[in-house]
């Protein structure tokens, strides 16, 4: 009797060493959204946002181009203050902004769809510091940047390479964007974000992308998504507008993000904050559509509450959850993709506070229907620190979100009637035919959690979560193998960078 070779022990050992996370390019949501507010409440907020836009207006600082475009479109210009007739922003946005778009990766299998019923999970963004158990808290370097790009590449639960996965403070300010963008291209093949700290750096990002994808492809597709923050309250600044303009002109995506620490940059109420968020987003997204109708945009908001006691930002508390749920609904009604949430926490270290605050925010973000979840992994200390152990803990959560949003299997196999009949009362299911057929993929297996007996845990050095995570990231970096990058593209990129860097002296600004 001939039968297929089963592979024996070595095959099993090899197969079981890897994470149980299944690779998917992005999450296709199959469960409903948690809808917090009813129609009347959402209409009230939309009405009030229009009032803010009409009566108070939004400032567009040191950027006459924006004022000119708004004036042409029918807004009232008063110095740098722009006031919008009711409904103007919404109709401009709904006329051209895509409800979803594809961001291409250099490996087409990694392309992501942003918007609609999709969720894309992205590492944290912007931290000047990093932390790990061995070296503690320190300023981030380009080496740390590369490490996080590699770790993200190796984590199936993260669909996007992100952007400023930490700020490499050891590279001159005016040149670090080259090394950052290059790292995303070289050490990963997932889609990435562009530099926004100056318009010329945005242009450099576009130019580097063109070396990878080709000029025409970049102009006719989206290969970069970039973060454009409002200077809340109710202000957009020249740096952000400049970068947004460059990206929009080249058909690249921008994430218009009110940056809200509620109580400081917005009113102390959830409803007031939502109103302001919507007003700012409407104005910013309208600007992008006026620059280039149809340029992909994301309605993004960062929202946390400030401690009224100290003025410091807080995370994982109920009010930002309420904000995220409601803002997601507002974005759906507007018809554009939504960004918010992530694994946010205020903790300095990857401890219990970090875990529950992040879990609170991640769960909320998943149930709310966030399409682009920046800050999913690595966030510590209010965004000041990118934590190595925290990253691993969050990636585990990210994997779980992928499973949760996949919903419930109602097929015959999922119904398991055969198993129920086979086992019946009193026995157990562990060896039943159905279980044998399904066990491997039945339940998500955490990469970080310890579920062993006390004695085994003690035998294995009584490690806590952060210590286990520490071992994991080191192992991952050790085992990292870069995705192949065409040699001629690599050379072209390096040549471009060398030439561009040579044109200016190193600067601290």
């Amino acid at each position, binding site marked *: 009797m001939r039968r297929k070779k089963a592979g024996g022990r070595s095959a099993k050992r090899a197969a079981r060493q890897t994470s149980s996370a299944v690779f998917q390019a992005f999450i296709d949501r199959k469960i409903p959204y948690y809808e917090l507010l009813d129609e009347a409440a959402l209409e009230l907020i939309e009405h009030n946002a229009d009032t803010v836009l009409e009566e108070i207006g939004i400032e567009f*600082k040191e950027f006459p181009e924006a004022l000119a475009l708004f004036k042409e479109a029918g807004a009232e210009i008063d110095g740098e203050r722009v006031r919008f007739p009711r409904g103007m922003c919404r109709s401009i946005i709904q006329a051209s902004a895509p409800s979803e778009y594809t961001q291409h990766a250099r490996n087409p299998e990694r392309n992501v769809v942003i918007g609609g019923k999709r969720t894309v999970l992205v590492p944290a963004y912007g931290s000047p510091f990093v932390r790990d158990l061995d070296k503690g808290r320190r300023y981030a370097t380009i080496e740390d940047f590369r490490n996080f790009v590699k770790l993200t590449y190796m984590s199936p639960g993260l669909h996007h390479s992100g952007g400023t996965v930490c700020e490499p403070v050891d590279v001159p300010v005016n040149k670090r964007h080259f090394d950052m963008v290059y790292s995303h291209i070289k050490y990963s093949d997932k889609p990435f974000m562009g530099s926004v700290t100056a318009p010329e750096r945005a242009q450099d990002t576009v130019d580097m992308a063109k070396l990878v994808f080709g000029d025409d492809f970049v102009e006719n597709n989206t290969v970069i998504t970039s973060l454009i923050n409002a200077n809340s309250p109710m202000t957009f600044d020249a740096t952000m507008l400049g970068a947004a303009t460059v990206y929009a002109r080249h058909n690249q995506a921008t994430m218009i993000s009110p940056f809200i620490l509620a109580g400081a940059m917005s009113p102390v109420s959830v409803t007031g904050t939502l109103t302001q968020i919507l007003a700012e987003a409407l104005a910013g997204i309208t600007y992008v559509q006026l620059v280039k109708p149809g340029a992909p945009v994301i309605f993004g908001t960062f929202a946390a509450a400030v401690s009224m006691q100290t003025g410091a930002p807080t995370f994982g508390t109920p009010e930002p959850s309420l904000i995220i749920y409601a803002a997601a609904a507002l974005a759906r009604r507007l018809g554009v993709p939504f960004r918010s949430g992530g694994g946010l926490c205020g903790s300095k270290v990857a401890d219990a506070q970090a875990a529950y605050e992040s879990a609170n925010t991640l769960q909320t973000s998943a149930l709310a229907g966030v399409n682009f979840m920046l800050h999913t992994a690595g966030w510590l200390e209010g965004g000041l620190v990118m934590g190595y152990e925290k990253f691993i803990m969050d990636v585990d959560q990210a994997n779980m979100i992928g499973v949760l949003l996949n919903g419930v299997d109602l097929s015959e196999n999922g119904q398991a009637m055969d198993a129920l009949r086979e086992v019946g009362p009193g026995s157990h299911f562990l060896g039943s035919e159905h279980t044998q057929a399904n066990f491997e993929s039945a339940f998500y297996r955490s990469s970080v959690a310890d579920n062993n007996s006390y004695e085994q845990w003690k035998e294995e050095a009584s490690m806590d979560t952060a210590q286990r995570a520490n071992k994991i990231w080191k192992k991952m970096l050790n085992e990292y193998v870069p995705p192949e990058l065409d040699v001629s593209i690599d050379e072209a990129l390096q040549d471009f960078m060398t030439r561009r860097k040579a044109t200016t002296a190193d600067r*601290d600004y």
Partner: protein
Amino acid sequence: MNQEAPLVDFVEDSALEDDDIVLADLSDDELVDQMHDDLYDGLQEEIEEGTTILLERGWSAEKVLNDALVGGMQIVGIDFRDGILFVPEVLLAANAMKGGMAILQPLLAASGVEPVGKIVIGTVKGDIHDIGKNLVGMMMEGAGFEVFDIGINNSVDDYLEAIEKHKPDILGMSALLTTTMPYMKVVIDELVARGIRDDYIVFVGGAPLNEEFGAAVGADYYCRDAAQAAELGPRVVKERRGQAVA
């Protein structure tokens, strides 16, 4: 018949209710205590009234400043640090203090009294974030400082112009962005180049900074928050003046 009615009428007819205080009726010590309470409660008009009364009683502006105002704000600072008073309440208290200071300022200047300290504060070039800086300014005012806030996006020249004009004890620089904080070194290097670095105490602050960074760019102090800046400010100015005299 209602026996209580006449009593109630009598009380309501009185000009005063139980919790009305007439500041002018209080002794000096009682008035200072009351002003501490009024500062704590952020009552600007009451502070202005109390300040005026003490001056009318012959108090020097300096004594009013130190005993009534600065003394009161120190209590506010302690309770803020201990989490009893919240940020909005501290801002109200600082505003009340400012009300009193406005009355005292010209008198202090006229009598040649040195202020607790002077600070020029601004956000660095390329950075337009100012909430933290504004809080520092308010807390420093609460501590009795004269604050010259030069706003956001300040170049080296903007800082130089301001310190030339105001001759502060402290130069304060703030940044929120990792990409703008290095500019602090540019400013400090220029002070060194012009041989005026030692004329000023340099404070730096902002989310992406730390003590090591402050030292690396050549600042004297890194302040982790507004409360620390307001506690440190008067102390370092006093130390420096003590040294100057010696």
